[in-house]
């Protein structure tokens, strides 16, 4: 080998300056993107908390958490009991998940495993379309359609209640679960499917013995996103729940949620008043609830993984 050829085959120690600059730049941008997620979460929490903070020390927390007396504008005796609102949010979210999870996961399995070709493509487009419907439109459907359907089918005097809102929330979160869940199932290697089917198992056995366990993390993420949407949803529940401060005893009782309370009342308060600050306290509570839900899910995933 000639000396010249030998020299050129050695790895070059110095790349052109502009390449190094670009690489630094790209690395910096990526770092900034990653850091921004943290920044935004803390930023949002900080600003919500800052508005709520002056009131935190003055509140009677036992009353706030357990009383259902929400009289923020009473002149004689102001009471900020959000017990009913918390129960309202949790009950409507829980009920909607009871409806949505079986449908969502089932539809994801159907689209991913049992559909092919044109049917699959059509279904995916339709489901994405369903996800794109604005929540105000859902609220409108709750007011005009679901209201009457519930009145016709059930012995309920008014159709604006827990069941109505839960059905709407389920309809809203199913499309998210389906598209994320389908991605999770798609991520299961085809070799698993082939290996299992070559062993002579049926497609159902394949689904519940191999695919669901293999995709459980992704499916859990899909369900969580659905839960997040349901907890955070404001407009549709404001319109469909009946918006009455009330701890529900049946499916047909009207309720009120934390989110809808903020939306309905924030515009009416004067900035800096106790009522105004109390609404921000509710915001902090919402934050806390979603945080706890995420944490529990994370722990659940870890627990499953360890096994």
């Amino acid at each position: 080998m000639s000396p010249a050829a030998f020299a050129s085959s050695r790895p070059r120690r110095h790349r052109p300056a502009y390449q190094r600059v670009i690489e630094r730049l790209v690395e910096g941008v990526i770092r900034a993107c990653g850091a921004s997620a943290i920044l935004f979460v803390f930023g949002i929490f900080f600003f919500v908390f800052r508005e709520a903070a002056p009131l935190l020390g003055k509140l009677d927390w036992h009353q706030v958490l357990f009383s259902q007396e929400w009289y923020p504008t009473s002149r004689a005796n102001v009471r900020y009991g959000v017990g009913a609102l918390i129960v309202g949010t949790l009950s409507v979210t829980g009920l909607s998940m009871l409806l949505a999870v079986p449908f969502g996961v089932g539809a994801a399995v159907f689209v991913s495993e049992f559909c092919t070709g044109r049917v699959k493509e059509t279904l995916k487009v339709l489901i994405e379309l369903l996800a794109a419907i604005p929540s105000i439109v859902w609220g409108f459907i709750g007011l005009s359609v679901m209201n009457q359907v519930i009145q016709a089918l059930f012995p309920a005097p008014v159709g604006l209640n827990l069941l109505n809102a839960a059905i709407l929330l389920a309809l809203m979160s199913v499309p998210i679960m389906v598209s994320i869940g389908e991605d999770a199932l798609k991520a299961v290697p085809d070799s698993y499917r082939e290996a299992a089917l070559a062993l002579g198992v049926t497609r159902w056995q394949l689904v519940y013995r191999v695919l669901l366990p293999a995709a459980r993390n992704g499916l859990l993420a899909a369900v969580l996103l659905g839960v997040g949407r349901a907890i955070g949803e404001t407009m549709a529940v404001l319109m469909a729940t009946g918006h009455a401060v009330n701890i529900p005893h049946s499916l047909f009782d009207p309720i009120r949620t934390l989110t809808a309370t903020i939306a309905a009342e924030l515009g009416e308060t004067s900035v800096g008043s106790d009522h105004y600050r109390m609404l921000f306290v509710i915001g902090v509570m919402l934050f806390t609830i979603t945080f706890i839900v995420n944490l529990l899910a994370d722990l659940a995933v870890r627990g499953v993984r360890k096994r």
Partner: protein
Amino acid sequence: MVTSPPKIEVRDLRLAYGHKEVLHGVSFAVPSHEIFGIIGPAQSAKTSLLRCLNRTIEFTPHIHVSGSIRVDGQDVRRVPDVYELRRKIGMVAPLPVGLPLSIYDNVAFAPRCAGLTNRQELEARVEKCLRQAALWDEVKDRLDTLGTKLSGGQQQRLTIARALSHEPEILCLDEFSIAIDPVTTMRIEDVLKELRREITIILVTNLTQQARRLADRTMFLWNGEVVELDRTEVMFSDSPKDRRTYDYVQGNFG
């Protein structure tokens, strides 16, 4: 052996992916309790051929199959229960696919799905299969760890154990030894020699010497066509019928 009907009979099998035909009319018959070797370079459609046998080829879109495959005299495309057919054929893929289950559950998977629930029978079955795959001694103390945590060679033996777990009558091995060290390969080859008393074995291999060691008859498949099919001694002798066979098995191909 000549009088009994063949276990597997393939007649004029053609397979096309889209417009590209990869098997151009392949015919052969395998009698019961034979070890049938299939050798041939990459892209000669050996794996596709195996996938036609248990009809897992159907999961690939845009395929077209013609000709006939009969297992026990019955056309595989007309079997009443395709799952029954697949349980009759054990399949070992070239790269191990550990299902995301424990070692025990990997092997117990197929019997369970077939409806075996008795715990003692299951345990006996798992142990038997793991012993047959020469893996039992290495994993007997940690049957509940994930199958995917095993080394590559161990995983491959796990898939062999799994392929035996539904007590197949035919075992198809697709280049099973590429992830296994030579010593373990020899142990499994001994197992295969034992197994042939009970079942029929189709051995697809890149190692021509493996076919020479094990197979009763060997088929040389090249570009989707059968170049030659004969008793293994003839194939590896100095005078096979086809010049290409000689070149391939002697290692001076191309």
